Structure formats: structure tokens, C-alpha cells
């Protein structure tokens, strides 16, 4: 039965290897990339004076740093709009039709926007276990800005370079037959209520970081700090309606890759129609202004009530003040009689003994943790460093002497991109 | 802290400015006070006026200790 709402078919083309070649193409699971064409795309932006492109594959002795964003190449095959609407594609409502995905490939942007940087991806060794991007075949962009470029413009230019290169790679899969197709469908509110009347109705509250330079998230091109909590179909996220412009506190920032592959959305879809009725997604921001925090959490609670859900999962993004948003969301939603499960991470100190969250409430009685970001890790030297090696000693979460003479690094887990992700992307936990 | 004293079997009255915090930490007999930096005084008054306020508050605390309670109780007057 055809229903109204949004229905998206995600076609996965599995990528097992990445190589440079004369012609960019996808063949037998290998992504071939013409380096010069990619460089030319980056240098279309006159803010960059030079660019380099490198490969990093699983198992290689390679360290990438400082990472700004990770993006999965996707392309719209059928249906309205294009990937990253409002950013590089027109503002068209996405999330329906067909989208092809180069599953197993990723574009990684690196850059030294400010003097202190973090975001490490190791492709092998103990650090590799903590980041999902040690398992993807990565095309890494190393872009050098022109002298006078201001930090804000630099950040924006890097972000767009990543989207454009990811779009370019995605295009290669436009006419391919996927190895696997998964279908995701969300009916309208009215139809959804009728579909599984016996199952508990569940929504997902996705919190978005929104606080300034290198702390921002964009929804259909709008800076999330200027939004009020709203509803979005989960499939819109799969087409890049939400992108990341934030990378400070690398361990618990959602990259664009995380938004495209939101694990809560996927795991709720997996149970949809079986044990629960996945109604939709509420997105809400994490602003600096306390009145904004009150307003946004009021709205997410109001929308949850309006959707008539029995339970929600709330995912946080970032460290410190978002704990306040998280607890506000929890309290206000629980007060509506709706049950909550929260996903967060912890800063319990290196010895694990400190109070982990900057806020707490008795109603937050169901919490999933992505681990203690202060736990110290030893990263052995790698044969090759891609990016800007000189930043190693001034990465956040590092400390005096964190970069040793042999190239090894002693630092807290928080330097590793995606290590304690608060969407629950990883298996890491803590007790 | 107030809970540990209560747990030891000694009736305790908590004199504090922030009643919600007192409720959170589990005090059973609560007397609200003036302000954080000077809970039992008020520097804008004369010494004698301050003593009057303090006398009144401590008197209220003694009354709280003499009062049977079954749940968290704030002694506003």
C-alpha cells in the first residue's frame, strides 16, 4: 500500500579499496580517483592557494590530523533535490526516491583554522579501535589557505571543499546498480497512528551543537542556532539535510558522516513495526544563551507531546553546557509523561573518579554512555602523517609533552574523532 | 551532610538560603535564611537589628526541632 510521507531507497555500493587513477570511477568495489580533478575542485575556491589529496586505508600506518569533518559520498538517483540541500544543492525537500551511497568510502577534510586543533584518526594500532573512520577507505583533503584568510572564511571554505569533493565522488555511483538496497519509510502522522496501534510510539530528539566558530551545525543551509526545535523526516537526514560545521571536542562531535548515518535513526527503523512505531525526529539546538536553552527544550517537549509518543531517545552533542540542554530536555519531556533514554558521554577525569556530567536530575534514570573522554591513551608513532603534524602538541586533550620525540602521542581519548560519539555510533561504554 | 546526621539518629534542622538545594540534599526540617554570603545576618542593618533577625531565625530553628514531621518541611514562619 502506498502511503503519504517520505520513502527513501538507499542503494549501497560497497567500497573495499581506494586508489588514484587516470579516470575517476567505481569498479569491482574499488574507488578510483583522479587526483588532479579533485585538486581542481578544491582550488575553485580562491581562498585556497594550494591543495593536496591523499589516501588512507584501513590497516595502514597512517595518522590523519587535525580532522575537521568526515563525509560519506552519496548521490540522488531519483526523487527531488540533491545531496546537502541548502548548502551545495538547491533548497528542495529531500529524503524520498533513491539515493546511492559509496559505503566504505569517506572524504576527510583537515585544516589548521586556529592554533589549537584536535581530531586524530589513526588507521591502525590502538587509536584505530576508537574511531569508526579507521575502517573506511578515505580520501583526505589537505588545503592551504591564502595568507590573509580569516578563520571564519577558512572554516567555511574547508567545509564546502569537503561537500563538493564528496558530491563529485558520489556522482560516480549515479548510474550504478547497488550491491544492496535498504528501504526506509515514514508515513504522515495521521497514517502512522493507524499503522501499528498496538506498538509504543517512539520519537528521536537529536540535539545539534550551535555556538559559533567551529561549533555550528546547519539544517538545509540554516545555522542551527537561529532555529527553533522542529520536525524532520529521518530520511531527510540520510540525504544530507543536516551537516556539521563543528569539530572542537573531536570525540563527541557529530561529523557530517554521523548525520548521514545517524545510528539512532537506523536502529529505530530496524525495530519499526516490530517492537515500536518510529514516528519521526525532533531536532533541537544547543545555544549559549540560557533563554534559548529554555525555549528550545520547551519546544522539543511540546513537539514530543504533540506527536503523541510514549518514549523518546535523546542524543547530546559536545561537552559541558549541552549537559544543561540534555537535562532540560529530559526533565520537560518526562514531565509530559513521556519516557526518555539519554545518550551522552563522560568527563570523569583521567582516573575516572570525578562527577561526569555538568548537570544531573533524578528523572535521568536511563542513560547510555559513549565512554569517559578523559581516559588517557597512548598512540604509537605512525609511518606517515597526513595533515598538519605540528599541531600535535597543541591539540586539545593533549598536554605538555603529549607529542614524544619518536612521534608517539600520549593524550586523552577526546582527541580522537568520533571516539565517544553521543549518537551511540560506537560500542565504547563505561561503568 | 544533613542526611548523614539524620541517619545517625540525631534530629537536625537545616538553616540555609537555597531551599530547593536543601530539599535536594534531603533535609527534613528546613529554615530559610537571608542570603548566601550572610545567611543569619544582614549587613545593611544595625548590629542590634541583625541580632533580632538572627534571634528570630534561631528561635524558629528550635521550634522546628520541637516539631514532629513526617516529610520534608519548610518552616517559613
Amino acid at each position, binding site marked *: 500500500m502506498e502511503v503519504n510521507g517520505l520513502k527513501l531507497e538507499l542503494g549501497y555500493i560497497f567500497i573495499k579499496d581506494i586508489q588514484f587513477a587516470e579516470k575517476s570511477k567505481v569498479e569491482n568495489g574499488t574507488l578510483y580517483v583522479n587526483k588532479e580533478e579533485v585538486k581542481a575542485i578544491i582550488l575553485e575556491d580562491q581562498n585556497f592557494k594550494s591543495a593536496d589529496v591523499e589516501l588512507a586505508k584501513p590497516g595502514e600506518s597512517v595518522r590523519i590530523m587535525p580532522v575537521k569533518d568526515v563525509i560519506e559520498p552519496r548521490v540522488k538517483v531519483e526523487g527531488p533535490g540533491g545531496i546537502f540541500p541548502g548548502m551545495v544543492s538547491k533548497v528542495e525537500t529531500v529524503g524520498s526516491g533513491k539515493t546511492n551511497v559509496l559505503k566504505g568510502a569517506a572524504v576527510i577534510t583537515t585544516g589548521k583554522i586556529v592554533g589549537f586543533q584536535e581530531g586524530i584518526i589513526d588507521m591502525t594500532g590502538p587509536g584505530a579501535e576508537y574511531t569508526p573512520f579507521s575502517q573506511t577507505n578515505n580520501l583526505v583533503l589537505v588545503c592551504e589557505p591564502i595568507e590573509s584568510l580569516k578563520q571564519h572564511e577558512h572554516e567555511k571554505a574547508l567545509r564546502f571543499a569537503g561537500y563538493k569533493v564528496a558530491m563529485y565522488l558520489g556522482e560516480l555511483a549515479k548510474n550504478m546498480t547497488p550491491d544492496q538496497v535498504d528501504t526506509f519509510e515514514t508515513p504522515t502522522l495521521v497514517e502512522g497512528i493507524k499503522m501499528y496501534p498496538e506498538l509504543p510510539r517512539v520519537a528521536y530528539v537529536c540535539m545539534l551543537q550551535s555556538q559559533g566558530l567551529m561549533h555550528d551545525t546547519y539544517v538545509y543551509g540554516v545555522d542551527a542556532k537561529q532555529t527553533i526545535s522542529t520536525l524532520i523526516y529521518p530520511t531527510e537526514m540520510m540525504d544530507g539535510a543536516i551537516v556539521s560545521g563543528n569539530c572542537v571536542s573531536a570525540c563527541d562531535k557529530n561529523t557530517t558522516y554521523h548525520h548521514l548515518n545517524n545510528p539512532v535513526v537506523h536502529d529505530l527503523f530496524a*525495530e519499526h513495526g516490530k517492537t515500536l512505531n518510529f514516528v519521526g525526529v525532533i531536532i533541537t539546538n544547543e545555544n549559549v544563551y540560557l533563554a534559548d536553552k529554555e525555549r528550545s527544550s520547551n519546544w522539543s517537549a511540546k513537539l514530543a507531546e504533540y506527536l503523541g509518543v510514549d518514549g523518546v531517545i535523546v542524543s547530546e552533542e559536545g561537552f559541558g553546557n549541552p549537559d544543561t540542554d540534555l537535562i532540560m530536555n529530559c526533565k520537560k519531556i518526562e514531565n509530559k509523561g513521556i519516557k526518555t533514554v539519554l545518550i551522552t558521554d563522560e568527563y570523569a577525569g583521567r582516573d*575516572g573518579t570525578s562527577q561526569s556530567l555538568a548537570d544531573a536530575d533524578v528523572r535521568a534514570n536511563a542513560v*547510555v554512555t559513549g565512554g569517559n573522554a578523559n581516559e588517557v591513551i597512548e598512540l604509537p608513532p605512525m609511518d606517515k602523517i597526513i595533515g598538519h603534524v605540528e599541531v600535535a602538541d597543541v591539540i586539545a586533550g593533549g598536554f605538555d609533552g603529549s607529542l614524544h620525540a619518536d612521534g608517539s602521542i600520549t593524550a586523552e581519548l577526546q582527541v580522537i574523532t568520533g571516539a565517544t560519539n553521543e549518537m551511540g555510533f560506537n560500542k565504547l561504554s563505561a561503568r | 551532610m544533613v542526611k548523614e546526621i539524620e541517619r*545517625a539518629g*540525631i534530629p537536625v534542622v537545616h*538553616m540555609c538560603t*537555597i531551599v530547593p538545594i536543601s530539599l535536594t540534599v534531603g533535609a527534613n*526540617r528546613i529554615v530559610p535564611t537571608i542570603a548566601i*554570603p550572610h545567611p543569619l545576618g544582614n549587613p545593611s542593618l544595625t548590629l542590634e537589628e541583625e541580632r533580632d533577625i538572627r534571634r528570630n531565625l534561631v528561635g524558629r530553628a*528550635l521550634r522546628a526541632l520541637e516539631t514532629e514531621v513526617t516529610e520534608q518541611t519548610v518552616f517559613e514562619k
Partner: protein
Amino acid sequence: MLKVVHYINQFFANVGGEEMAHIPAELREGNVGPGLAFQQAFGDEAQIVATIVCGDSYFNENMEEAQKTIINMVKELQPDLFIAGPAFNAGRYGVACGTIAKAVKDQLNIPVLTGMYKENPGADMFKTSLYVVSTKNSAAGMRDAVKKMAPLALKLAKGEKIGASSEEGYMPNGIRKNFFDTERGSKRAVKMLLSKLADKEFETEFPMPDFDRVAPNPAVKDITKAKIALVTSGGIVPKGNPDHIESSSASKYGKYDIDGVMDLTEATYETAHGGYDPVYANLDPDRVLPVDILREFEKQGKIGSLHRYFYTTVGNGTAVKSAKAFAAKFAQELKADGVDAVILTST
């Protein structure tokens, strides 16, 4: 091979039940009772060289003496590990296991392990200072307990890295440790939500701070006869802060004699508290600790007496972690000193 000494009570040593709980500590060679199951689980990696058997009543009623004797026995044997119990839901046995294991750990610096049911009073007393394995509530759970305790025991004896509580089976001790779970966080969240929605039991991965409650004590019968003690979290100390109480996250509390002190003045007292602007409290410390008024009431017979000592900490209202431990300690002193009621002032 690693050497292990095992501590059990009279019941598990097959000496007898409650009627034999008075027997003092004795040393036996090799394993006894549940020690056999541990020995089998250790294989040839470790050997129980001796078992200490002690009656529960004896241990709890002669705690100092019993500890001394047992410590000397263990010292003599120089083991690589000391295991006590498991005690399951036996309260006095659990307390004995925890007490003696802690003593061995602290005094002899030997790794120790015990196990008991989560509601055993010994669990709350010792789970933050020792590895206490969570067992079932009766001896029927012995096999399960040994299965959890033996591998952890070997790790401890070898000095290996100990994983998170949920991996190793010990009770959460307040120290957060990372580990890789079998499913990703989002999946765990969906499962937790389904349990919560179905009103089934679920376990949060991150317990919020303690929000428990203590029932109010009965009122003071006659306040005019009562001995009242003053306690403050406002950090009032004698001028010069003789005990060097830290301005925040203090590692100690102060206990000060106010015998004959009628009024706290700028010249004699001050605040050590870093959690508020100290100007007003320093000018007149009675604004935080009303000694002047209580002396007045004492003279007028409105109270029986003001206790000779006041206690001070620098709690800041929201951070209650360390204050809790201090308070538990001085509350016992107040009780022993015959204090009838406490006025606690906070800033």
C-alpha cells in the same frame, strides 16, 4: 605458582551454624569448603596454601583482636592474593569479609577480593574501597560466584589491568572505566527504551548522583533540656585557619572548642569557604554560625546547653560527595557525646 590465602566463616568450614559462631580464628592448611571449587577453577595457576576459619560472632565482637591475629597469619604466609568469602546474603559474614580484606590490603599491601549479595550490608560498606564481586543471595549461587571470582582473582594476583565493573563482575565502585560493549550505543539505547516502556527492569549505564532520602527523626521532647550542637558548611574557622582547611573540595573538616566563647568576632574567627564572597562572614562570623544567640538562649534557659565543639566544612550546597563521608564520621561523635539535636547552617 601463585599463593592464595582464603578466609571463610564457621558455617562454610562445616564447623557449625550459629551455635559455633563464637570460635576464634584458626589456620588450616590447604583449601577448606568452598576453597575446593576455587582451587579447581585456578587449575595449576594458583594454589590455596591456607584457609583461615573464623566465627562470625567472634570476628564482629572482637574486631580488633581478630584482625590482628588474622593479619599476622597472612603476613607469615606472604600470599599473592587474599580471598574472603563469598558471603552471599549473610550480613555479619559480609562485614567480616570486607573488614578483613580491607585490612589485609591496607596493612600488607596484598591484592584482595571478596564477594557477596548486593544487599548484604558489607556491600555498601566496602564496594568503593575493594573489589567486591556481586553474587546471588544464597550459597546455592556458589558455582556462579566462583566462576566470576576466580578469573578476577587471578588477574589481581598477577597485577593485570582490571576492566570495567560490568566486564569483570565486581560492584560499581564509582571509578568510571571504559570498555567495548557488544552492541553500539544507539542499539543499547533502543533496548533500554523498550524495557522502560514495558515497565521492565533496566540498568542505566550512568547512575545519577544519590538522591536517596532519610526519614526524619522524632522531635526533641524538651528543647530547654536539650544539648544542641552547631554544624556549618559555611567554613567558619578560628582566625588564621589553623587546620588549613581548603577553600573548596576540602580534604578535611574542622572541629573547634567553643567552651567559654560567647560571640564570634572579626578578631577571632573567619571563613575558609571559597564558595561565596567572604567579606560579610569575616566581619561577623555569627552571620553564618550563630554562637552569640545560642549563648544567649543557653543563659535564658531556652536550650539546655550548647555543645562544647562545633564542626565546620566548606560544602557548597551542590557538591555533597566528600561532605557525606565527613558527616558520617562526626555524626557518630556527636551521638557519642550525647548531643540531642543539631543546627546545621549553610551559605
